[in-house]
């Protein structure tokens, strides 16, 4: 349950961060574009484990002390945000340019066009990619066990430590991850079929 909670919270924050950074990556504003690109490059270029360690053990050195859970959520959100930014960028670019022009020609501002026209379609186009990111994040949350968050993987380790039996508990842990990820991918293929009615001809 902790695993699920951490993942859901992180993906939500990640979506917010990622959408903003994704907009930055298609922005004509050089500063916005620069910041977004730098953020994405740094996060994608470093291991998540290292990011988690920096947030939890590194930040206290500059005076920011965080409880394990907030630290974990921050690390996961910031990380997934970078990947989601790329997904959002691809999604926006997948929507034909003419739609932006059509929206603008009706008198919508750039942001209104994005919000009402481009992003809904972009979101639909990248739903599978977003789901993959969600699944990846769910699995990556196991790394949080290193900062003493009692999530699924750590529970498994605790059981192993007390029972000296590594086989069954870890197998059980793997099974629990599958129980979460399989329904997720099912859900996406189902929703895609439902949304398919207005797929491009």
């Amino acid at each position, binding site marked *: 349950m902790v695993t699920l909670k951490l993942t859901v919270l992180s993906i939500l924050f990640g979506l917010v961060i990622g959408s903003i950074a994704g907009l930055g990556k298609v922005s004509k504003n050089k500063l916005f574009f620069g910041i977004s690109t730098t953020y994405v490059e740094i996060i994608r270029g470093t291991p998540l484990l290292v990011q988690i360690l920096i947030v939890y053990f590194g930040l206290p050195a500059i005076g920011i002390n965080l409880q394990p859970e907030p630290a974990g959520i921050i690390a996961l959100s910031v990380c997934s945000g970078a990947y989601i930014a790329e997904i959002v960028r691809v999604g926006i670019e997948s929507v034909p340019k003419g739609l932006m*022009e*059509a*929206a603008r020609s*009706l008198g919508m501002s750039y942001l209104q066009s994005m919000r009402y026209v481009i992003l809904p379609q972009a979101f639909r186009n990248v739903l599978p990619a977003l789901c993959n990111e969600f699944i990846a994040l769910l699995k990556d949350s196991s790394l949080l066990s290193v900062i003493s968050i009692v999530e699924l993987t750590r529970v498994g380790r605790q059981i192993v430590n007390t029972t000296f039996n590594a086989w069954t508990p870890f197998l059980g842990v793997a099974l629990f991850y599958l129980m979460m990820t399989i329904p997720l991918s099912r859900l996406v293929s189902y929703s895609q079929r439902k949304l398919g009615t207005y*797929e*491009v*001809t």
Partner: protein
Amino acid sequence: MSVDKGEVVVIIGPSGSGKSTLLRCINRLEEPTSGRIILDGVEITGNKVDINKIRQRIGMVFQQFNLFSHLTAIQNVTLAPIKIKKMDKNEAMETGMRLLEKVGLADKADYYPAQLSGGQQQRVAIARALAMNPEVMLFDEVTSALDPELVKEVLDVMKQLAKDGMTMIVVTHETGFAKEVGDRVIFMDDGIIVEEGKPEKIFSNPEHERTRRFLSMIL
């Protein structure tokens, strides 16, 4: 050039002659590098104008329809009035349905663009542009991407619009339409207006050599 209220101006010319660019400059989808555009006595070029407000008064229909594919026909038509004009939902729906009726698609209101033919999509696009109640309508080669048998239904809607007194600027290769509906024809080549006049005169007795050469290729 100037266009009077209620006038239908048809722009013809070879591809790359700047017809579409001219049209797109009018609502500033393309920024004019020089010159001024005046709508109803007010200059709309320059940095001070709120271009979004201006665009609400200028409807545009595109060659590629550009319908919002995640919305149904009626939602395409009502989106801008509801979100931008803050029109009441029911009122927008009513107006929207009336417009769809006008383009002959009231029965397709709940269809998604992908479920409609090209001609039907383009008619929805016309209804969508009309929904903002514009003073001028710009048509950018709106029948060029259509199968030949679907062209007529779109042109018929445009003819009706012209009859209703809409001010229209139409870039097209449909000479039949130009002759029948156009009050004035403008021939463009290389970014300049070479010749303009009544359709009968331009098509039957053009003054310029370039116009003649172009017409001999398409007629």
